[in-house]
């Protein structure tokens, strides 16, 4: 892969083995995370041992795809041409309803994005990879 190709394409995730089920599920537009069978807490990012209690009893669950904005920033100056082309775009942490924090892109008008607002996931194709991004939940969709 040449440098020019790297700069002009969507960066692809550096896949590690713990997260293989996550990436596979995303191909089917399913957002998943791990939960510990012993302490029952959500575990994220993907691990082979529970970061909270040390148990190896982790299993994959499907997320509701809903959460609230914990923090965010709108980027005016993209790092490479593919990002400059979609700037301004917003990245941030979503506190998922299941209790873990996911770094993601938050779509929508920057002025409408605020800490605490509800968001839900949808899926976008970025190069060979399908990725979850989030958008504000409008009042009509709530409940």
């Amino acid at each position: 892969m040449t440098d020019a190709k790297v700069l002009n394409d969507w960066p692809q995730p550096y896949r590690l083995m713990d997260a293989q089920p996550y990436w596979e599920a995303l191909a089917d537009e399913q957002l998943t995370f791990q939960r510990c069978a012993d302490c029952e807490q959500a575990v994220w990012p993907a691990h082979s041992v529970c970061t909270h209690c040390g148990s190896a009893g982790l299993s994959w669950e499907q997320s509701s795809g809903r959460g609230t904005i914990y923090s965010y920033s709108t980027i005016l100056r993209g790092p490479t041409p593919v990002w400059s082309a979609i700037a301004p775009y917003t990245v941030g942490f979503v506190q998922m309803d299941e209790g873990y924090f996911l770094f993601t892109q938050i779509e929508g008008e920057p002025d409408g994005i605020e800490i605490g607002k509800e968001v839900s996931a949808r899926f976008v194709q970025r190069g060979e990879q399908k990725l979850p991004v989030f958008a504000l939940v409008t009042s009509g969709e709530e409940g």
Partner: protein
Amino acid sequence: MSTAPGAAIVGMGDAYASLDNRKDPLQLAVEATTAALADAGIRKDQVDAVFTGRSPWADKRSQWSNIFISHMQMPVTLTSELTMHGAGLTATIAVASQMIAVGAAEYVLCLQSDATQLFVDAVAMGAEADADPQFEVPYGPTIPALYAQAARRYFHEFGLTEEDLADVAVANQRWGAHHPYAAKRKHGEIDRAKVLASPYVATPLRRWMCSTWGGGTGGALIVTSAEKAREAQNPVYVLGCGSATTHEYLGDRMNMRHCRYPGLGEFPNLTHTATAEAARQAYAMSGLGPSDIDMMQISVNFAHMGPIVMEDLGFAKKGHGIDVYREGRTGIDGDLPTDTNGGWLSFGQPGISCNMDSLVEAVRQLRGQALGLAPARRPRTALVQGAGGMLAAGSVALLSSST
């Protein structure tokens, strides 16, 4: 009351490069080391160990500390890179002191150089180097956008505003406007309106609230025992050191539920850093506290880190660090002159060497050899805080011109 220091800096050398005066990291390192050896009055064959931070951005070969001694044709007993992302560079002083204390070395060289702007497209490389390549990089974060996650939370939790951050930039530029090697020197002193008129880089951070890549720097320090330092011209004693790190990637930090260090507050949060624990260790080792410090060189790559670091170092309660700037304490007439070369915000970040620039500035001021402005009252005890990564690691060194 402080305990007797075990080690001291007896040699200092610095070197500078610019677009008009290009030097690569190896050249900067050689120039700084040559000056430091001369300053200490020793030959290269008397150096027992060499510690650097991680490889310069402008020369990313791994084993850089060993590449350096190879280039110098300078056999030693130990070389290593102390990383903690970038904060390890400040911790080289601690490790050097420990080696000396146990008799494993007589002289240790702590060294770093870089010249990112002269050799690298740092904006393109930035996020890939500092974000999680699996779960963050696919969303295109930049370094300012990752730091902005903390700024946004800081605003939200403590009610700070862009105006407050502007005051930090103004305070640092007051120093930087007068330092010959400060990247933003040419702009002169600025006011709040100028900061608030600059465009957003990543909300809520505007251009004047962000550090810039600037030129190239090299810095070298020779550390030896406090006993040997008695023969030296201008020794700077190492009174205390500390360091801590909580993560590499912000996503790991956000998903921690608790932290063993009480100074970092309830988890998750993005408003406390490992510097709080690093400072606790350094104060405990030295027997000093914040009221004993009369100058600081700290890591303020984005304006909100000024107040956050002030709080982590114990100079204000969480959420009130901005008062230290508002009250003028960090200025030339203040009781806590801070970032006297302009700091990362105005001096700029030449690259990995930015934490060494802070150490060099502290040594110069303690010796009365400032290249830019000097505080109205010559400082005697300085705190140097080096940070690394995305709010990840912190290291603190307490230095003094007297024992």
